[in-house]
């Protein structure tokens, strides 16, 4: 019962977050001093357009009508956004939703690979360090993990780009796929896509350093607990103990790390894709902010946020399957 309640609450929370993000972006567009709507109006009127035409254009582009009272404009904004209308880009005049739909899969592709590999690397390295705690391997790997944790991912990205792409020419210096291949389900295209994604994915692996330190701490704590001794006395095999007892219990707290990583990686995609000129959603958002293309900027921000909300929701749901204790905390009021 608690389990079901918790799931329903979690769905409610996700919906609430999406609503909060939409409201926030409406407030930013319409209400804040120096808001995009006002800025756009001024921009257009200064370029010699008559005010009525400028208002029409702003309405078309931002899906916010300047002359409507705020509550009505807010309702219209919510409904049009929920219907997938994110306005039109100032620079290209294209619907923002279409542009984003083309950019998003690339970012999801790179991010999901980075997340998976980071998580697996963190768990494996952390477990190795814990198993040989205090040994030479532990000291070496710990130093490595600290170094990884100290390097911002974009610094690693630059180093990889400078040396592997520009110096040695092993990898492409930018782009998403080999020019001239036909996008679709064919081998040259897919291998080209993989090839171009290697360096961005590698750069994001710095997060595995901190993750492995967390895993190391958890495993050491589990290794010292009484139920492990009991398991050994029962004569369970080492493999069963290490996989069923140690790994499972040590990995549970890692989920929090994973959740935080999701947000940070999606946020980081802005810088990452700029460095590699990898034209996904992050690059799109970066360009939009740089040229102050407000519809693109708000649309990109909303989509990237909603992507994180969905990713976190999926992660939370699977977590509750692994750990039956999830969500049962006391909420008694003091």
């Amino acid at each position, binding site marked *: 019962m608690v389990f079901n309640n918790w799931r329903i609450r979690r769905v409610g*929370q*996700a919906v609430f977050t999406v609503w909060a993000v939409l409201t926030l972006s409406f407030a930013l567009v319409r209400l804040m001093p120096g808001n995009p709507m006002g800025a756009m109006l001024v921009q257009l009127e200064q370029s010699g357009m008559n005010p009525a035409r400028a208002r029409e254009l702003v309405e078309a582009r931002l899906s916010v009508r300047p002359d409507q009272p705020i509550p009505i404009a807010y309702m219209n904004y919510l409904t049009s956004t929920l219907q997938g209308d994110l306005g039109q880009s100032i620079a290209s005049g294209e619907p923002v939703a279409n542009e984003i739909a083309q950019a998003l899969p690339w970012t999801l592709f790179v991010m999901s690979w980075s997340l998976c590999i980071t998580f697996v690397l963190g768990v494996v390295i952390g477990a190795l360090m814990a198993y040989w705690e205090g040994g030479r391997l532990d000291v070496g790997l710990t130093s490595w993990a600290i170094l990884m944790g100290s390097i911002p991912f974009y610094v690693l990205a630059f180093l990889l780009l400078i040396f592997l792409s520009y110096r040695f020419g092993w990898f492409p210096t930018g782009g998403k796929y080999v020019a001239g291949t036909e996008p679709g389900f064919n081998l040259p295209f897919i291998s080209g896509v993989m090839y171009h994604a290697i360096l961005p994915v590698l750069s994001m692996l710095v997060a595995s350093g901190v993750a492995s330190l967390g895993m190391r701490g958890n495993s050491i704590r589990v290794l010292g607990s009484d139920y492990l001794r009991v398991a050994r006395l029962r004569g369970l095999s080492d493999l069963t103990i290490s996989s069923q007892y140690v790994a499972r219990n040590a990995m549970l707290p890692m989920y929090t790390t994973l959740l935080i990583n999701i947000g940070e990686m999606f946020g980081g995609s*802005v810088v990452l894709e700029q460095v590699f000129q990898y034209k996904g959603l992050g690059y799109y958002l970066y360009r939009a902010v740089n040229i102050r293309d407000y519809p693109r900027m708000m649309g990109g921000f909303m989509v990237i946020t909603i992507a994180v909300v969905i990713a976190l929701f999926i992660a939370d749901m699977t977590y509750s399957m692994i750990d039956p204790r999830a969500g049962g905390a006391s909420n008694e009021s003091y």
Partner: protein
Amino acid sequence: MTDRDHKETLTDALDGTISTDGGTATPFETVSQVEESRADRFWTAYDTYVRAPLSIVWGDWRARIGFAIVLCYLLMGTVGTVVIEPTAPAEGPALIQPFETMDYPLGTDDMGRDLFSQVVHSTQEMLKMITAGALFSVTLGTLVGAVAGYKGGWIDTVLSSITDVFINIPGFPLVMVLVAIFEMGENPYMIGILLSVASWSGLARAIRSQVLTLRQESFVESARTMGLPTHVIVSKEIVPPLLPYIVINLTNAARRVIFEAAALYYLGILPFEKLNWGVTLQLAYEAEAHARPQALHWFLVPMAAITGISIGLILLGQSLDRVFNPRVRARHEKTTADEDTLEATTH
């Protein structure tokens, strides 16, 4: 009332002052056996809060390195800006390699600006951002997490919902959008706080879940039974046991502020007048320094500056963990050493 209790109250009533265990004093009249002067108290405090932590920090190699690195940056930000002259375009020849001449120890960029001077003069602004951002996110995170976890009920529901919204919003894009709309000034404190506008939420959630177990402890329960007001319980009973965790998070928050600030300057989203690590990166990128072998150091110098302070902060954070560990502490405190030896002899 049992029979025995009854008898005791009877004897008490009969001979007035003498209690049943043979003693003459009630607990309320007991006087402390040990006298403690103000000087003693001062020394205890000094020992607990200054000497022991320093001694622990000094005993750990990671801490020594971390401490030295952070101190280096602090010196660069304070003394360094006075000692080392700010650089200007065409100060020296373009693209001198590092360690070539002692005039430009880290080389120059393509406009002949001294890179070492650039690094030193960016430090102060960065340190201001770090301080403001880290303090802001840790204070807010602790406050929200502790109150939500302790109070429970609808206050918890409201605060947790807000926290969850901020956890779900990726911080970097939010900051980008805010910077683009608000046209930030150059006040480093404001930038630091803006960079932390979403990052307090992770700490708030972690603190809340720890407070949820803490609130059932007996010392918290007794404080509540005594009728202490909530703000006293939260500040005197709930937060102190969590201090180690909070302090370690301070170093993490500081690291994140540096990473994000440098990234925003690199992307050219934050306005700037003076050079700093991120701006240097941006200029190097725009000059295609990554494609030119002779300009490589232009990239490496700011990257090393960012990575260096980050290594320092990580090492410091890891060793602070030990400072707050009671077992490690006891070994370093002189005033608690008596109990330690006592324990050793009895076992």
